[in-house]
């Protein structure tokens, strides 16, 4: 059967199981759009190509499948850059398809020509220009393999217009991926493996550091089994949240810059760290010279390049988290760590008692209230998609996630503007799920154009704007480290309720604590999207905080005021 390149692309995507494509048309990708119209693929028209990549990313994060974004050449492609880098830093499998000028025009500065493979080289796992119609099916299939294998990541396929227009015989079997034979390293270094087992079986104050790799490996059940066999408490990275239930007593909570104080202190006192699918990011370790100096370290990681990158470890096991844990499990002795566990409990001090929710209503509305109430009303069952900044950290502290893939957030790149589009992607991936956007007034204004996408696609996404009139996290740094010189952080926002109305979305402003729960309940009672504008305390800060570059135990604690820095006990 003879098909055009554009038709071959649509057919290939369909056969690969793709159902949704987030994109924006333009000249160099028009043949593909024409073919899309005849296919069964559901194309979601975004309002900006950055949104398309975040949607594909949110789609991938919500399911573990591959998200697909599409754009035209030139500005369409360059608008994708931020979204691609976001996916790269958080190991999210996204395939971006861009149109490119015809092959005979390549390199001629033709209209809307840009060297997008050159631009995205360092922020993709792989990228490739396709200029022959015969190569399209095979290369797209290879892109899906690469995006998904090992440590996942974004792949960009740039297809010239003439390749989209030309025709060739379409043969699925003949277009199977032909990736070159790559060395399979003998990762199972027996000496290091044995050392890891010995360390695990002899440690007195061990802690597991759990990262997103556990989720990417689909190893949640195996991990739980490992934790309860070894009796080792678990600290979470931001992106690891959800891979181990928050309600589990062995879950200490989040570590790092805005992690729980007792978690960071416990890490500094530990004699063994078992890092699983995490990469010792600087936001997690603080100053490396003082990081967990008493601890031996074991690193289970699928990406060899992460071993000894930031923290030198005593034993590295390179491999898939689930497979590695399964191999380790029978060798781990059930041990009693009750002394260590009760010591960690002591470290909590009275923080669990000083429950933020039980404090009297001071007339102020704090972001922490809003998020904690959202957790209570949704019974922790929503997919929460956050933006970046203070609200993101409060979400991590006050919304307790028991299920994997229920917190979707830009961790590595810290991309403002991520939340709204990523939530749209998540909703398409999990139409059954309740999806909440938790976003600041700054980040929301970066990609609020995607409200139109929500309306056009008639999808049910709830939006909670944590509106404090500042770029809050930057303001916080200015308060702590720049003598309260609030340069460029006070920010004027439109009337978000009126804005929502202009898009045809119901909006509501919430200014007091007692309105929070009813407003969330009311938003949940409809199948339509709702925007809630929470006017929260303007100059509240996220505590505790490890200043950038400081030692992990060197935390700024909340000054003596009605708010406490701790999450409530679930």
């Amino acid at each position: 059967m003879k098909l055009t390149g554009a038709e071959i692309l649509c057919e290939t995507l369909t056969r690969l199981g793709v159902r949704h494509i987030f994109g924006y048309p333009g000249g160099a990708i028009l043949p593909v759009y024409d073919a899309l119209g005849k296919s069964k693929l559901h194309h979601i028209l975004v309002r900006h190509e950055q949104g398309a990549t975040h949607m594909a990313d949110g789609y991938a994060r919500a399911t573990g499948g591959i998200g697909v974004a599409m754009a035209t050449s030139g500005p369409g492609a360059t608008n994708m850059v931020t979204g691609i880098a976001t996916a790269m830093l958080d190991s999210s499998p996204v395939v971006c398809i861009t149109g490119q000028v015809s092959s005979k025009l390549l390199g001629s500065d033709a209209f809307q020509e840009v060297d997008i493979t050159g631009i995205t080289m360092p922020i993709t796992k792989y990228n490739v220009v396709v200029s022959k119609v015969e190569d399209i099916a095979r290369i797209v299939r290879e892109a899906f393999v690469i995006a998904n294998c090992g440590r996942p990541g974004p792949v960009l396929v740039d297809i010239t217009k003439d390749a989209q227009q030309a025709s060739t015989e379409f043969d699925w079997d003949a277009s199977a991926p032909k990736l070159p034979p790559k060395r399979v390293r003998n990762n199972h270094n027996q000496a290091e493996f044995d050392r890891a087992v010995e360390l695990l079986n002899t440690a007195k104050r061990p802690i597991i550091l759990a990262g997103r790799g556990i989720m990417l490996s689909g190893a949640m059940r195996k991990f739980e089994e490992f934790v309860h066999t070894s009796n080792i408490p678990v600290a979470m990275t931001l992106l690891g949240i959800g891979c181990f239930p928050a309600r589990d007593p062995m879950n200490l909570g989040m570590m790092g810059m805005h992690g729980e104080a007792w978690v960071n202190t416990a890490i500094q006192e530990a004699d063994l760290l078992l890092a699983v699918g995490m990469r010792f990011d600087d936001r997690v370790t603080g100053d490396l010279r003082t990081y967990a100096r008493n601890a031996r370290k074991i690193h289970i990681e699928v990406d060899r390049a992460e071993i000894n990158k930031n923290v030198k470890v005593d034993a590295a096991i390179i491999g898939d988290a689930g497979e590695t844990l399964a191999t380790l499990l029978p060798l781990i002795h059930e041990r009693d760590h009750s002394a260590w566990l009760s010591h960690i409990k002591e470290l909590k001090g009275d923080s669990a008692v000083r429950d933020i929710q039980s404090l009297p209503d001071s007339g102020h509305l704090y972001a922490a209230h809003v998020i904690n109430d959202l957790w209570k009303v949704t019974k922790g069952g929503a997919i929460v998609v956050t933006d970046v900044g203070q609200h993101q950290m409060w979400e991590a502290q006050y919304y307790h996630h028991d299920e994997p893939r229920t917190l979707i957030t830009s961790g590595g790149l810290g991309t403002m503007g991520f939340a709204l589009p990523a939530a749209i992607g998540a909703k398409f991936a999990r139409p059954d799920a309740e999806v909440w956007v938790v976003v600041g007034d700054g980040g929301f204004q970066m990609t609020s154009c995607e409200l139109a996408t929500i309306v056009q696609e008639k999808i049910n996404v709830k939006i909670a704007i944590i509106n404090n009139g500042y770029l809050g996290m930057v303001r916080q740094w200015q308060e702590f480290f720049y003598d309260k010189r609030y340069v460029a952080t006070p920010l004027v926002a439109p009337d978000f309720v009126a804005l929502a109305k202009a898009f045809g979305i119901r909006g509501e402003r919430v200014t007091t604590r007692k309105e929070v729960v009813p407003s969330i309940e009311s938003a949940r009672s409809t199948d339509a999207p709702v925007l809630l504008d929470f006017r929260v305390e303007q100059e509240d800060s996220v505590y505790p905080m490890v200043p950038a570059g400081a030692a992990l135990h060197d935390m700024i604690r909340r000054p003596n005021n009605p708010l406490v820095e701790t999450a409530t006990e679930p």
Partner: protein
Amino acid sequence: MQTIVAYVENKPGVLNRVASLTRRLAINIDSLTVGPTENEEIARMTICAHTDERGAIRLEASLEKLVDVLLAENISDRSMLERDLALIKVAADQQNRPHLMELIKVFRGRVVDVAPESLIVEVSGTVDKIDGLLEVLRPFGVLEMARTGRIAMTRGSDLLRPPAEASARSKEPAPPAK
């Protein structure tokens, strides 16, 4: 100095990816050579870089992460041969030419071109050897020089061959359940 040998796909853009990686890691390349192998789809690179052992480990691991790199191995500590090739054009007239030829012979260089006022020496060997010859030639006037950069190979039965077996990554992800 660290020496890394890599097998890469022989296609456009691969050199760019490798070079871009060293730039990101802030590792200065002293020499980088690329040439075909017996398999025309695979090229072999020898990368000599100014970095410490830790840098070399990172470079090796990061290189092997690139889709187009089939294998990368740091062979600095292994028993190996390193060779550099140079063409050196030296000023030479009738008077000093015989003396010059004597010196070149000591370094096992070959005179491959003679002109009235210059000659070209071809010399191969270790970097030290070529640097040594260069030192001796300099007083005569080195007019031009081209060097290939190093190629390296481990000795004896220590084989470094491109992988032949397809690895697990070529498996296609299963389409999501409908």
